[in-house]
C-alpha cells in the first residue's frame, strides 16, 4: 500500500492552529505518511509542529459554513484544533488522518521508516541482554541457571528465548510446569535480593481447575527457592473471589494442601477496561476547566485513578516487605501474569534495589520486567484516554506503573538518577514513537518483525549524553537503602506533569525549576573552585615549608 493513496490532500494553506494558552497561529498544514506537520511562516516567530499520526487517539470534525474545524486528541493527552478553509480540503484531511492514524499493519508504522539523524554510539537493542543480567547474578549465587528452553518460543509464546530458573529444575520439568500455568508462563526469576538472598519470582495462574489439579514439578520449582525451614509468600494480584471464579475457567490458585510452605495473600489490582475507564474519566475531569470544586473532587474520586495507584503501590510494598523484612521469597502472579504481576514485581524492585533507581538500571528494568516479560504493549497502548473503541485489551497498565514510580520519586526526590521528564518520555514512547522498542506484544512478535534489524531502539537515542542530560536529576545522590513510600491518600498526588500538562500555563513552575537547577549548578561550581583554591594554597604552603626547611 502506498501512503499517497491515503493522502487525498497533502497540503492546505491558511490553516489556523489553536492550542490552549497559546495565541492562535496561521500557517500551512502538510500530511506525510507518518506525520502531520504544521508550519507558520511568520517572520518573528516561525514554528513547526510535528505530530506523529500514531500519536493521534481520536479526531473530530465540524463545519461552520465552508470553514472546517478538526479537533485532534493525542495519546499524550494533548488536544489541538485546526481550522481549515474549504469543506473538501477539510474532509480530505480528516479522513486521511483517520486512516493514517489507524494503520492495521505494524510494518507500516513509522519506526520502520525512521532514519536516525544522530550518531549511534550504542545499539540499544543489544544494551540489555539476558546473559548480562545473568552474569551479574552468578557473581552472587550459583543456585540459578539460564534456560534456553524457550529458544524458538515453542514452550511459552510470551516469554523471551532465555529465562532464569532454579538450577535444580531441568528443562523437562519446566515443560511440565509450563503445561500447568496459564499461557505456559511458568515461574521464573524476577529479582534476587542481594542483602539476604531472597528472591521474587513471577508466573501466571496455575491451571488447577475445579477439581484441584496439581503439578508436582510446579511445587518442586517454587519450593526450590525456599531456604530449609523457611516459608514463602504467594502474592496473588486478584481478590480471593476472582481467583476462585477463575477455577471454573480452568485457572485457579495454589492450594494450601499442595503448597504447605507458602502463604498466599490476595491483593486486588484492577485490569483491562476498568483501568481504561479510569484513565478516560480522569482525563475528562482534568480537561474541564469549568468544574467547580465539588465537581472536580467528585470527578477525581469517581475516576478511581488514585485508588488504583494506591492498590498497586501497596501490593508492591507488600512484596518488598516480605522479601526485605520477612526474609522470605515471593511468587507474584495474577491471571496471565502480564499486567498487574509486572506492576508489582517492577515496583518492588524500585523500592528494594538502588540500581533500578538509576537511568540505566531503570531502562534495564523496563526491558526485563515489561518488554521481555511479555507485557502486550501494542494491545495495551493501542489507544489512550480519548479512545472510544472499548476494546478489552486496551489499558493504561504501563502508565499506572510510571505514575507509581513518579509517586515514589516525589517522596524520595534525591534517590533517583532520572527526573520526571524521563518518565513522561517513556509514557509518550510507549504510545507513539519513532523507535521500535515498544512495538509488538512480546519478544516472539518482535523477533518475527525483525525489529532489531529494521528499527531503531529507543535506548540508542536516549543513552547519548545530549539526551541523557535532559533526563538527569540534579539532586541525585546514590542511596543504597530500601525506600518505603507512604501510601496514605494524603501522600499521593495527581501526576500533574502528565494530566495537567496541557491544561495550565507552566511558565512560572518551569522558571522556578530552572532557578533550582541553577542553584545546584552554581553550588557545584563553587565547590570545585573552593577545592581548587585550597589545593593551590596547600601547595604554596608546602613549598614554603620546604623552603623553610632548606
Amino acid at each position, binding site marked *: 500500500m502506498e501512503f499517497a493513496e491515503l493522502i487525498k490532500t497533502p497540503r492546505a494553506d491558511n490553516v489556523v492552529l489553536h492550542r490552549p494558552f497559546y495565541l492562535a497561529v496561521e500557517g500551512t498544514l502538510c500530511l506525510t505518511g507518518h506525520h502531520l506537520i504544521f508550519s507558520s511562516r511568520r517572520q518573528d516567530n516561525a514554528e513547526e509542529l510535528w505530530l506523529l499520526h500514531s500519536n493521534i487517539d481520536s479526531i473530530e470534525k465540524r463545519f461552520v459554513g465552508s470553514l472546517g474545524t478538526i479537533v485532534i486528541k493525542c495519546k499524550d493527552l494533548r488536544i489541538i484544533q485546526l481550522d481549515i478553509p474549504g469543506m473538501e480540503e477539510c474532509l480530505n484531511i480528516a479522513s486521511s488522518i483517520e486512516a493514517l492514524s489507524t494503520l492495521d499493519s505494524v510494518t507500516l508504522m513509522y519506526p520502520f521508516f525512521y532514519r536516525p539523524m544522530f550518531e549511534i554510539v550504542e545499539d540499544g537493542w543489544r544494551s540489555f541482554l539476558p546473559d548480562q543480567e545473568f552474569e551479574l547474578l552468578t557473581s552472587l549465587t550459583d543456585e540459578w541457571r539460564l534456560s534456553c528452553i524457550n529458544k524458538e518460543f515453542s514452550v511459552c509464546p510470551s516469554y523471551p528465548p532465555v529465562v532464569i530458573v532454579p538450577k535444580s529444575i531441568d528443562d523437562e520439568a519446566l515443560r511440565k510446569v509450563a503445561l500447568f500455568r496459564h499461557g505456559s508462563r511458568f515461574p521464573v526469576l524476577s529479582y534476587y535480593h542481594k542483602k539476604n538472598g531472597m528472591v521474587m519470582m513471577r508466573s501466571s495462574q496455575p491451571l488447577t481447575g475445579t477439581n484441584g489439579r496439581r503439578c508436582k514439578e510446579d511445587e518442586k520449582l517454587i519450593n526450590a527457592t525456599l531456604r530449609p525451614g523457611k516459608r514463602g509468600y504467594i502474592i496473588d494480584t486478584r481478590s480471593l473471589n476472582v481467583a476462585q471464579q477463575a477455577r471454573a475457567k480452568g485457572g485457579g490458585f495454589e492450594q494450601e494442601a499442595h503448597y504447605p510452605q507458602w*502463604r498466599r*495473600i490476595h*491483593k486486588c489490582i484492577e485490569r483491562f477496561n476498568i483501568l481504561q475507564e479510569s484513565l478516560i474519566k480522569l482525563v475528562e475531569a482534568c480537561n474541564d*476547566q469549568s*468544574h*467547580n*470544586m*465539588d465537581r472536580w*473532587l*467528585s470527578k*477525581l*474520586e469517581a475516576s*478511581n485513578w*488514585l*485508588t488504583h*495507584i*494506591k492498590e498497586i503501590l*501497596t501490593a508492591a*510494598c507488600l512484596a518488598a*516487605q*516480605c522479601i526485605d*523484612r*520477612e526474609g522470605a521469597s515471593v511468587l507474584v502472579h495474577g491471571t496471565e501474569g502480564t499486567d498487574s504481576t509486572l506492576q508489582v514485581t517492577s515496583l518492588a524492585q524500585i523500592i528494594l534495589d538502588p540500581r533500578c533507581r538509576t537511568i540505566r538500571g531503570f531502562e534495564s528494568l523496563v526491558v526485563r520486567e515489561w518488554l521481555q516479560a511479555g507485557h502486550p504493549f501494542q494491545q495495551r497502548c493501542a489507544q489512550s484516554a480519548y479512545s472510544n473503541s472499548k476494546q478489552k485489551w486496551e489499558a493504561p497498565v504501563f502508565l499506572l506503573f510510571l505514575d507509581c514510580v513518579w509517586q515514589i520519586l516525589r517522596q*524520595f*526526590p*534525591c534517590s533517583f538518577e532520572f527526573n520526571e521528564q524521563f518518565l513522561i518520555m517513556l509514557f509518550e514512547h510507549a504510545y507513539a514513537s519513532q523507535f521500535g522498542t515498544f512495538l509488538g506484544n512480546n519478544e516472539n512478535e518482535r523477533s518475527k518483525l525483525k525489529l532489531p534489524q529494521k528499527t531503531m531502539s529507543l535506548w540508542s537515542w536516549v543513552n547519548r549524553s545530549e539526551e541523557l542530560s535532559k533526563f538527569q536529576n540534579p*539532586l541525585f545522590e546514590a542511596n543504597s537503602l*530500601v*525506600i*518505603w*513510600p*507512604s501510601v*496514605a*491518600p*494524603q*501522600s499521593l*498526588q*495527581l501526576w500533574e506533569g502528565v494530566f*495537567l500538562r496541557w*491544561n*495550565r500555563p507552566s511558565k*512560572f513552575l518551569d*522558571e*522556578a525549576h530552572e*532557578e*533550582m537547577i541553577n*542553584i*545546584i549548578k*552554581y*553550588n557545584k561550581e*563553587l565547590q570545585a*573552585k*573552593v577545592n581548587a*583554591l*585550597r589545593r*593551590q*594554597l596547600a601547595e604554596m*604552603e608546602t613549598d*614554603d*615549608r620546604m623552603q623553610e626547611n632548606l
Partner: protein
Amino acid sequence: SSFSFFLQVEQVKLLDRFSTSNKSLTGTLYLTATHLLFIDSSQRETWILHHHIAAVEKLPLTTSGCPLVIQCKNFRIVHFVVPRERDCHDIYNSLLQLSRTAKYEELYAFSYNPKQNESQQVKGWQLIDLAEEYKRMGVPNDYWQLSDANRDYKICETYPRELYVPRTASKPIIVGSSKFRSKGRFPVLSYYHKNKEAAICRCSQPLSGFSARCLEDEHMLQAISKANPSNRYMYVMDTRPKLNAMANRAAGKGYENEDNYSNIRFQFVGIENIHVMRSSLQKLLEVSGTKGLSVNDFLSGLENSGWLRHIKAVLDAAVFLVKAIAVESASVLVHCSDGWDRTSQVCSLGALLLDSYYRTIKGFMVLIEKDWISFGHKFSDRCCQLDGDPKEISPVFTQFLETVWNLTEQFPQAFEYNEAFLLQIHEHVHSCQFGNFLGNCQKEREELKLKEKTYSLWPFLLDEQKKYQNPLYNPDFSPELTLLEPNTVSFNFKFWRNMYHQFDRSMHPRQSVFNLIMNMSEQNKQLEEDIKELEAKIKQRNGQPDAVISKEHQQPAHLAPMTLKSPPCFKKEQPLIPVNDAVRTIEGSNTADNRYSEFVEEFSKAEPAVVSLEYGVARMTC
C-alpha cells in the same frame, strides 16, 4: 534539660496516630506551668504548649491503661495511654484547667521571658510601623488624609486610632456613616494603589434593613469614588452569599441599594460565614484523621467538608477585587457583616496580589498587622485564647494563610518567604506566647499594656529569617509578577498536607527538595566568601613570598554546610519545617511508619501463628 514540673507520670505510652497495630513509644509525661512534656525512652522530647490544646478527651479504659487524646490547634493530635486511671484523671483535669484561661494576664505571653532588655522590647514593638506603611503606599496625598475622628476610639472601638479617609469626607459624614454601619465600622482606606490611584476600602454592612438610607453614608461612598481620578465608578463587594446578606435585612442590616448610591457597582462574592468555616474544618480534620483511609473516602471527605471550595471562594473574591483595580483602575469597597473576617481575608489577599512588597518577609508582617491586627480581626475569639463562646471560634486566619500557601505553589519565585514562615505564624497565632495576636482589637491591646508586658513576635521571626527564606525567590524576576494573576481553576487547589499533617511524619516526603535547595543556596553564600578569603590569601602569598605562615592560614576554609543555630525563642516547640530536618531525610523511611496497613491486619487475621510483619521493624537498616 532542666525544667520544673508539678506532675510526673511514668510508663506512659505515646501511640502512633495512624498505626493500625498500636505501635507506641513508652516514656514519662510531665506537666509544667506552660507545657506538657513527654520524654520517650530514647530521650526524645515532645513539648506541647497548654495554649495549643484545643480539646482533651479521656477514652474508655483498656487493658493497657487509660487512653487520653489531645487535639491541638496546630493540628497535632497525640494519643497517650496512661497505665493508672487515677493518673490519667489527674492529667486530664490539670490539662483542662491549664488549657482554659479565664484572663488575658494568665496567658503565656505575660510570663514568657526571652531575656531581652526593655529597650529591645520597645524596639521590637516598633519594628512594624503602620504610619510608615501608609506613607509607603503614598498616603496622605491630594485625595486621602489621616483622620483623627477615631483618635480616642470614640467612633469605632474595634478600629485603630489612625484611619485614612478621603479628604472630602468631613467629620459629620464620618460620624453619620459610622452610625449607619454595623459596629460603627465605617468605610476607611485599607490599601492605596499609587499607579492606578485606586483604593481598597473596608467597612461593615450598612444598617439598611429593607429600605433605610443614610445620606452621610452615601456621601462617604461618593467621597471614596471621587478620591479616584482614574475611574468615577467604584465597586462595592459584599463578600457574603447573597442569601445571607438578604437575611440580614430582617435584622435591620443588609447591603447597599444600588439606586441610593451613585456610581457604584454592587457585587456579592459568596464566602461563607464563620460557622460554616468552623464546621468545614471540623469535617476536614475528621476525614484526614481517619486510620486506614482509602483514597475515595479521602477525596469524598475532602469534597464534603467543602474546605477547598471555601479556599477557592476566598481567592476568587480577591481576584475579583484585583481585576477591578488593575484592569479598571476602580476603587473597591469591601465588606461582609462586621467587616473583620471575610473582609480582612479579601482586602489582605487583594493587596498581596497587587503589591509585591507584601510578598517579602517584612511586608507580610506589615500586611498582617494592618489588615488583621489593627482592623480588629477578633484573634482572641476566633482562636479561643480565653475560655469563651465556642461558636466564636473559626479558622478564618488559617484560611488566609492557606490561600497564600496556594499562591506560593503557583508562583514559586514570587515570595520571599516559604511555607515554614506561614506555618510558624500559624503556630504563634495560637501559642499566645507573643503579644501581637492577643485580644480582639487595638483598644483592648492598649488596655492590656501588651507593649510593656509582652514581646512582639516579628523581631524573633526576623532574627531567624534564614529559616523562612524561599531560595527560589527572585524580586526582579519579572515585571509581570508585580501583579499576580492566579489561576483559580479547581485543580490548582491542593490539600495542605504540611499544615494538617505537620506532625505526622510518615506522610511527608522522605527527602525535601526544598530544604536541600535552601541549604545549598545558604551554602553558596558561604562558599562565595570562602573563595574571596582563599583568593586573598593566595594573593597575599604571591605578593609576600616570605610571609610567615600564621596558624590561621593552615586551617582549611570552612566548607561544612551551614547549620543554623537553634532559635532561642522556639526551643521548646519543634520548628515546623526545620532546615536540617532529619525526619525528612531517608532515615525516617521504614515499613512500620507507613503501613501498607490493611495487609498487616488481613495477614495476622489470616494466620495468627505468623509474626506480624511490623514486629521488629523499628528502623531503617543500611
